[in-house]
């Protein structure tokens, strides 16, 4: 069972935000889903066997890419050819 404070913590970790009014219903629905997930306890074994797939590698070569102005076109805020982001520190 996840408590309201755990659900709030998850919302913060996931950066999706949660409002006071929706916390009750979110927690209730979250727990109903987690309870359903408990059926996975019946699966034996802790790690999946290696599959027969293999990695696809390629040379790390410079190739033509999109022009700068096209890359910046969808950004909300730009400055001197860079994308402007909120401050981290």
């Amino acid at each position, binding site marked *: 069972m*996840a408590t309201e404070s755990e*659900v709030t913590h*998850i*919302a*913060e*970790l*996931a*950066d*999706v*935000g*949660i*409002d006071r009014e*929706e916390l009750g219903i*979110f927690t209730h*629905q*979250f727990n*109903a*889903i*987690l309870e*359903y*997930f408990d*059926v*996975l*306890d*019946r*699966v*034996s*074994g*802790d*790690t*999946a*066997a290696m*599959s027969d797939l293999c990695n*696809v590698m*390629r040379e790390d070569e410079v190739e033509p890419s*999109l022009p700068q102005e*096209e*890359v910046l*076109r*969808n*950004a*909300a*805020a730009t400055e001197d050819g860079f*994308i*402007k*982001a*909120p*401050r*981290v520190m």
Partner: protein
Amino acid sequence: MGDNEICFETDDRYNAFLTTCKKAPHGPGALAGIGVAVKDNISTKGIETTCASKILKGYIPPYDAHVVELLRNSGAAIVGKTNMDEFGMGTTTENSAFGPTLNPCDTGRVPGGSSGGSAAAVAGGMVRMALGTDTGGSIRCPAAFCGIVGLKPTYGRVSRYGLVAYANSLEQIGPMGRTVSDVSDLMQVIAGYDRRDSTSYDRPYTHIPCADINGLRIGIPRQYFGGGVDPEVAAVVTRAIGRLEGLGATTVSCSIPSMEYALAAYYVICTSEASSNLARFDGVRYGPAADSKKPWHEAYQEVRRANFGTEVRRRIMLGTFALSSGYYGKYYAKAQVARMNVKQDFARIFADVDVIAGPTMPTIAFKLGEKSDPLSMYLSDILTVPVNLAGIPAISVPCGKVNGMPVGLQVMGRPWEDERVIDVAFAYEQECV
């Protein structure tokens, strides 16, 4: 109107489209001049692509998805972008930020999802064919609910380059149309190797549908006809399989024991992948702006809280939880073992039969607003998600009606045998429609 464009006008009474291209250019080729609708999570250069989310409102991709390049090269005219559940998260198309799509067979019901706009555009006669995407049934469910044909190809057969990712390890782009031949023709255009998708496989599709299924062995899993499946739907599908027997096929009873936990495994895996994939939507490179004067997390949470729908936030949170330390072993690791078990169950059955058949969906299309509880919506995906976990091909073809609403026959095949599921669906269609 020029020689090389078609004029696309629609009243869009079913809210199938998010964007329409009134003048759609086209070239010569196999699909010359045929209007094709494209689901709105597939990138189209110069045409707004929103994934039915407010967080991508106004986003104009600077490049085409691989499948869109192939469509343009085939001469097809891209006439619009279709409505969907936001980022593909839903089974009804009610989770669109831009309003639900209505089912052309009964406008009081949902078209299914998440490719509901593509299905409604085809079923409503607005386009002959459309592209959808299928992560846990999102092509087959709306095909079944709207009475059209939809193919979820073998994982790796169609490039995902330019598909806005929701759950990479599960999803494939696939064709939808009114007939099996149309679906096959569209598959021929979109399948093929693309180095920009590292899971792409070099298996072009050049098949012409063939209705001869004499000697075919069909597995009938008991889980597809048991509890939770509407008996009337099961009866219609059983009759349809009887028609295939009349064409020379034989049926074999079988069992997929891993279905006990397949749905839970699917939701753990898809939400985990979603929590990672959707981290890119931060209001910085595209979409509504994050307040760049605020601290990072505060700005980020504000823009995501305001612009993601409830179901998207729920799935991001579930995935974050399933991957968090202390819970990883209980959820994500177990789900991966469960996924391997599903794959092995299919491999065991396919050693003895050529295809597996059952209903696509456990019920007919829901009434609008009927599935308000998230868990009850998830449970309706039980018959479609095993295919995505195993990466195998599956098709839904209309096979009758219950209460006037279409029912889909689902045919599942061995990996890379998309041709065979097409043939079985074609044989049924030629015999019965």
